[in-house]
């Protein structure tokens, strides 16, 4: 009784505050949200376009003609890599998705575990393992098979990109598989279709829009990826790796900006097609009510089933090899060609890099909390309230998802390198860049959670006398608890692992773990690099596990 009274009193005083400041606070929140989106998304993008047209003498197309003339091979390489990667990666992803959703029990747990680890891995891990396993002195190519070959070429790039984009795609595709209406599959069986025909006549056709989406997204990711070609491309350059070189080596922002705009054209086209496809996919798969996952016995699905099984086994075996390699390499030392266990690198890391570790974690935590809160508010105001220019802002928020990370980062350099907004070199610009780069995904997560909250809930809060702030505080935020967890997890792992967007924003004196890792890979210090990669994975898993545990306990407390 007493605690009840207390609660009411506290609530009442809070509401009194809100009664006075309520509407003003509401307006203030909108202003802050929209203002910061303009400042940190719209303005940098404008800057890139502007810069690409301004030469020393005024408005020209000079930068563009330069790029198109000088980088024709790179442009061609980008498209070539993009198309092939998209194809191989999609085939592997479909196979993996089919295997994941048709497996049960511990096999499924194992597969999901592998996928989870790859999702929280920094981007250079595959390349690192590639060199270590298949390189000139590779464990498999040199030590086991005793062949010597040059691994630094375009096929290595294509292969590595294909492999490292699979997990995300496989997750997306198996999500689509769970949404297939179980009744259509039952109906097919009922009419006489065996497993093979169910796969070919029902499951694959229903996945088709999803497969096209995968192709497009992979293409976009491939042409934006600068790490893989830089590390294992050798003399094979793509536009993305050229942009990186351009900024690191020659620092010609006009040229880099023009290159980015060119890179943006196929990306935007791909995204336009993506939206069309996604709508189609939603139309085909709108499974409702309780769903059993598609229960396919791939072994009985004929040749296609076998291919899917073999391909995905290949993929999972390579993934396991990759991580065994990464996790073990950091704890070994070589003496006269033989390996032995050693903590030498760990000691070295703890001696010189503790500041970097802490900095990375703290940045990521700040971005996660602020970003999650930001996206919840933004999702609420755009979904539920009549914010002026709502569609425009929705589009703006999606922009960082579409444009390549390096491009977004260059926009920040151009936008914030002069007074009165001189932010380059500060921690703020780095965190802002991370936050807005991740905002598209987290707002989507929050919007999805919001659609589960019936409007009547909101109305009843107001009906019972709460103001707009009360709705936000008592109805919206609490009901987005599940979204909080997934947003936070996404924010944290991305912040710990993204490199592209912030690589040029980082102050050399204040490195983050990912860059330390990139440097080590680039310099060929593979054991140290492996240890750093392991450390990042462990930190992300630990923090996310902790957050999950806390919210799970909290949930249990509330129920009882």
């Amino acid at each position, binding site marked *: 009784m007493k605690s009840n009274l207390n609660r009411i009193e506290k609530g009442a005083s809070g509401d009194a505050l809100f009664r006075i400041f309520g509407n003003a606070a509401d307006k203030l929140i909108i202003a802050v949200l929209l203002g910061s989106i303009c400042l940190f998304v719209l303005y940098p993008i404008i800057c890139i376009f502007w810069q690409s047209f301004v030469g020393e003498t005024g408005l020209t197309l000079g930068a563009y003609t330069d790029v198109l003339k000088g980088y024709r091979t790179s442009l061609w390489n980008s498209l070539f890599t993009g198309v092939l990667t998209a194809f191989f990666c999609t085939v592997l992803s479909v196979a993996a998705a089919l295997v994941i959703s048709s497996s049960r029990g511990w096999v499924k747990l194992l597969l999901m575990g592998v996928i989870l680890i790859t999702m929280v891995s920094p981007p250079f891990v595959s390349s690192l393992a590639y060199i270590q396993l298949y390189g000139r002195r590779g464990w498999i190519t040199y030590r086991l098979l005793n062949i010597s070959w040059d691994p630094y070429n375009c096929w290595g790039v294509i292969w590595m990109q294909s492999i490292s984009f699979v997990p995300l795609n496989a997750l997306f595709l198996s999500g689509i598989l769970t949404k297939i*209406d179980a*009744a*259509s*599959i*039952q*109906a*097919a*069986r*009922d*009419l*006489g*279709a*065996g497993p093979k*025909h169910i796969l070919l*006549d*029902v499951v694959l*056709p*229903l996945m*088709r829009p999803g497969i096209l989406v995968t192709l497009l997204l992979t293409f976009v990711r491939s042409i934006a990826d600068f790490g893989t070609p830089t590390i294992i491309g050798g003399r094979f350059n793509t536009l993305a790796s050229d942009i990186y070189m351009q900024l690191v080596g020659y620092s010609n922002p006009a040229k880099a900006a023009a290159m980015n705009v060119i890179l943006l054209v196929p990306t935007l086209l791909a995204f336009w097609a993506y939206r069309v496809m996604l709508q189609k996919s939603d*139309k*085909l*798969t709108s499974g*409702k*009510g309780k769903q059993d996952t598609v229960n396919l016995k791939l072994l009985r699905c004929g040749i296609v089933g076998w291919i899917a099984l073999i391909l995905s086994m290949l993929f999972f075996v390579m993934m396991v090899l990759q991580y065994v390699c990464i996790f073990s390499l950091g704890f070994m030392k070589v003496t006269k060609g033989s390996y032995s266990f050693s903590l030498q690198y760990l000691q070295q890391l703890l001696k010189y890099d503790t500041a970097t570790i802490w900095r990375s974690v703290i940045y990521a935590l700040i971005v996660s909390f602020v970003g999650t809160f930001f996206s919840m508010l933004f999702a609420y105001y755009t979904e539920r309230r009549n914010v002026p220019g709502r569609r425009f802002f929705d589009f703006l928020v999606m922009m960082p998802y579409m444009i390549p990370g390096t491009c977004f980062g260059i926009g920040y350099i151009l936008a914030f390198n002069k007074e009165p907004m001189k932010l380059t070199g500060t921690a703020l610009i780095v965190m802002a860049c991370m936050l807005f780069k991740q905002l598209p995904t987290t707002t989507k997560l929050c919007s999805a959670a919001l659609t589960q909250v019936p409007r009547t809930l909101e109305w009843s809060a107001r009906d019972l006398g709460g103001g707009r702030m009360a709705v936000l505080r008592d109805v919206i935020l609490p009901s987005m608890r599940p979204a909080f967890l997934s947003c936070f997890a996404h924010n944290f792992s991305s912040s710990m692992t993204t490199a592209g967007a912030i690589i040029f924003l980082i102050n050399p004196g204040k490195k983050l773990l990912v860059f330390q890792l990139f440097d080590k890979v680039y310099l060929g210090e593979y054991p140290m690099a492996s240890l750093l990669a392991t450390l990042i994975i462990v930190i992300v898993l630990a923090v996310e596990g902790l957050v999950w545990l806390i919210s799970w306990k909290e949930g249990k407390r509330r129920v009882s």
Partner: protein
Amino acid sequence: MYLELSHLKKQFDGKDVVCDLSLTMEKGKLLCILGSSGCGKTTTLNMIGGFLTPDSGKILLDGQDLTRLPPEQRPVSTVFQSYGLFPHMTLLENVIYGLKFRGFSKADARKKGREYLDMVGLADRAGAFIHEISGGQQQRVALARALIVEPKLCLLDEPFCNLDAALRVKMREELKKLQRDLDMTMVFVTHDQEEAMILSDSMAIMEQGHLLQNDTPERIYRNPANDFVKRFLNLDDLIWTQDGKLMKIISHQM
């Protein structure tokens, strides 16, 4: 007997959902399974269709033991509660899908498909996709798709529950006519008492996994097995006249 269910049992997580259910029906008849929500109607139907295996008991159809056959090998077809139409195929492709596994040539299949679409009054929409037609039309496509394979037994799980009252009455008549014309044996699940009374040759009334009574509507009306059946069917409000008319009393409080 044409269809014979004997001592069917099914448990979910240790809970009896269908307990010792035995039931028979003749060829060319329509049986309605009636009962309140959650009493095990869908579960029973799924066992006949082969989507669930009974824990014990037997299912015989036309002398053949179906109990352990997978659905694709049973001479039974189902109209699902949510229709289960293929969203990526046209109406015609949906209807003729089952013929693919019965040795039909493409041309023959299409010809037969058009006949069945005509039968359910949708011949002119053959090329449309599922999301382009209304709920009532989808219902008819599902029916045509199930009937075209000429099953020995057709199962329908609350096929009219997504339709409005007027359309239900219309579809009810059409279904009855189709069933008579094709001399089809059907098992029809519903929890609408009126629908069951009108449609069925015999009614099976279930409660919490048990079969309470299985008989013709008129005999159930005259001799309800127990109080539950009487209340469930609202028998006090029904009058079955000597000349075979069924009348419903709707009391209107002033």
